[in-house]
């Protein structure tokens, strides 16, 4: 039985998804028995040229985590698509754009200036900025082009499956690898390792009346562990977020943030979260409604925390 050829690659990522794979602990050794990991920058040596030399579809499976923000990310996305039988968008960034996707709300020039010129840790007078091309001795050094917005993986290439989560839980990682190893594949384009209902289905907290006169940041109150967080004014995104993660966050008093993405029938998770929050405001007076909304600091950030590039508008469209 030939070993599975797999690659695990990170685009615009934090590394958490790769750590999630490592978190499978000894399981990774089992994986090692049935698979050759041909590319995994976080854990092993490997060169892009090795990938380029592969035959088309030589890889059985690539797990691509992270979003696409630079020309390097895009290049590898296309390369790995070409060389893989199955390409899986692994984790929220590849699936939906992830937290890096929030950068779509800020003009690229502003991000650049903040990173390299206008922040407290830059020495005054230091105006060194990265250049796309520069000479280092006799060698011309080029660095990847930084795009002016974030893309999710399927904006660039055809994706076979999506594994949601920020990061996907290591149990899901095992389950997904197991499914792929078994050959019994679900329909192409499926989101795997999750359920088809919103998180409220698994959450044990009691749900009664949804009427709120004030919203609270999670640190502002000590929520009752038995009652629905949203009903207590804490912005839990669970009602518009796909389940299957085991309710790990609400179970310890933290509101769901929405990392598994929208439930199957929802076209735009941010729009639905907006609708949900507005629906529970307990008032009919415009002034009072405004006051209640003032306790909600950042609707766009809350609603699109993991999925800005996957919303209908995808990004800010200012002049």
């Amino acid at each position, binding site marked *: 039985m030939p070993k599975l050829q797999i690659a695990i690659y990170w685009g615009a990522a934090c590394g958490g998804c790769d750590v999630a794979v490592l978190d499978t602990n000894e399981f990774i050794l089992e994986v090692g028995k049935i698979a050759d990991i041909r590319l995994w920058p976080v854990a092993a040596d490997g060169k892009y040229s090795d990938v380029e030399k592969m035959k088309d579809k030589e890889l059985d499976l690539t797990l691509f985590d992270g979003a696409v923000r630079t020309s390097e990310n895009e290049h590898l996305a296309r390369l790995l698509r070409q060389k893989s039988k199955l390409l899986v968008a692994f984790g929220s960034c590849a699936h939906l754009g992830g937290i890096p996707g929030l950068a779509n709300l800020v003009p690229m020039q502003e991000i650049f200036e903040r990173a390299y010129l206008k922040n407290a840790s830059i020495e005054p007078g230091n105006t060194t900025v990265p250049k796309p091309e520069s000479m280092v001795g006799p060698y011309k050094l080029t660095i990847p082009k930084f795009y002016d917005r974030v893309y999710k993986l399927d904006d660039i290439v055809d994706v076979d499956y999506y594994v949601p989560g920020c990061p996907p839980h290591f149990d899901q990682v095992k389950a997904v690898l197991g499914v792929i190893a078994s050959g019994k594949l679900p329909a192409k384009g499926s989101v795997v390792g999750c359920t088809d*209902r919103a998180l409220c289905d698994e959450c044990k907290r009691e749900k009664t009346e*949804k009427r709120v006169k004030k919203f609270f940041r999670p640190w502002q109150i000590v929520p009752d562990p038995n009652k629905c967080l949203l009903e207590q004014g804490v912005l839990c995104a669970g009602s518009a977020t796909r389940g299957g993660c085991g309710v790990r966050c609400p179970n310890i008093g933290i509101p769901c943030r929405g990392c598994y993405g929208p439930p199957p029938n929802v076209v735009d998770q941010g729009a639905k979260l907006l609708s*949900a929050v507005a629906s529970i405001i307990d008032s009919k007076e415009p002034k009072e409604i405004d006051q209640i909304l003032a306790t909600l600091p950042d609707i766009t950030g809350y609603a699109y925390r993991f999925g800005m590039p996957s919303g209908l508008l995808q990004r800010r469209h200012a002049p």
Partner: protein
Amino acid sequence: MSDLKIGVYICNCGTNIAKTVDCEAVIKAMQTLPGVAVAKSYKYMCSNPGQEMIAADIKTLGLNRVVVAACSPRMHEPTFRKALDSAGLNPYFLEMANIREQNSWVHEDGAACTHKAIDLTRGAVKRVAFHEALEKRSVPMSPSVLVLGGGVAGMTAALEIGDANQTVYLVEREDHLGGNVARIDLTAPHLDSARDLLLDRITRVTTHPKIKVLLKSELVEMSGYIGNFKTKIKTAGKELELELEVGALVVCTGYQEFDAKKIRNFGYGSLPDVITSFELETMIRAGKIVTKSGKTPRYVSLIHCVGSRSEEHHPYCSRVCCMTAIKYAHEVKSMIPDAYVSDLYIDMHAFGKGCEDFYKRGSELRTMFLMYKKNQPPVVRVADPKEKFGMLIALSEQLSGEDVEIPADLIVLMVGMEPRADSASVAHIVNISRDKDGWFIESHPKLDPVATTTDGIFIAGACQAPKDIPDSVAQARAASARIMAKIAQGKIWVDAVYAEVDPEYCSGCRMCNELCPYSAIEFDAAEKRSHVISAVCKACGACVAGCPSSAIKGRHFTDKQIFAQIEGVMA
């Protein structure tokens, strides 16, 4: 959807549409769209030949969707739905594009009109592809009715329904029937005996074979929906609650009077000869009007708007008190011919039949009418013991423009009507709403005053708003007629357009339950899923937009249909 066969029909509407819209251009544009099997225009699509053309095309061309670009759907959607039905195609496979009221009649530029007509019709073509066959269905109903409250409204409703041979349960909290009318002697403006009026009704109600009177009883619980309400009645002195299944309820719980103690200026509660209208009624029924010390009063004053039309107390007018005050002027003069009667009012509301004449006759009795200003009520004080009268009333008289003080031995306060103290809990039990003043809210103030937003629950009488006996009776009859119409059908027809929760995607988040103004979405705690009672759903779509999982489908107004229509008009 490769088996779509859409027929597109552009109506000329004579010249109404054709004068500005280039119908040929619209036809050509529609012919390029995928799924369109035929596109034609005709002079008058709504005419018989027009409808027959559609029906014939459905049969010969096997059309499974129809778009009619014509007048507003509010005009002819039912007409064209019938045309589809006549050809054996489900009527909901129709979509209309409004190219008359919202196009040819409102824009002058022919090119712009044509462009818009093409966009709107294309929107309809894309939308109709996602239409589904929808059916009306029926659920059984119980023909029994529960009437809550045994006053004049409640008894009227019970008799109407009982006379129509349906079972009525008349639930009354007190140990007698009659409500507030039982506390008065004569009615205004005709000075009929309230006692006779009531006696007749009470006799008929208590001897009626179809009416079951439950005295000393209260409705404590209600669940279910129109045609299928489950109610629990608690009777004082009985341990077990009575469980009744009824198809409809009429709420006739009436009113209570304003507590005059709340207005210090009148001295009610501290001055013995300041009494309320109801207290005067008691005296009149006993046959003698006297002061507390037993003397016959020489000066009798009637003060209007006690607790009503007031910024501090109730802003509304209690409707009946003006004519009741005139009635008292008559009664006092009839029992004490030498008495001086003064009537202190803000405005004389003599709106009803016979009331202006009654007012005129009231003044012919030499009643002294004194007008005071709203929110500047008269002030009552005890007179000097030397004086021949007991009290003095000071007021800023508006007709003369003078500040006057008038003598009074007996002051009658025309206390206003207010919602009963338990109206909030009654509203909660039967699932209806109250307005800002606490009265039960009707479905529509002008067009539907006896129905409520909860199907099957009707309101009649003063519990809806202050009103007199004729109006209470009229409302009770109206509610009964509505109920009889439903009972006559024998079943409740559920409209084909309603919202449906898909249990496969419902997460039990319960966002929807509160959003429904008709309480049509119930939550099954065991299954942890919400469910729409289609018989009660009015298809507003609030739950569909509010569901964070998009698990609720708004039949005939689904997300897919609306998205397709947006794509179509923007293409």
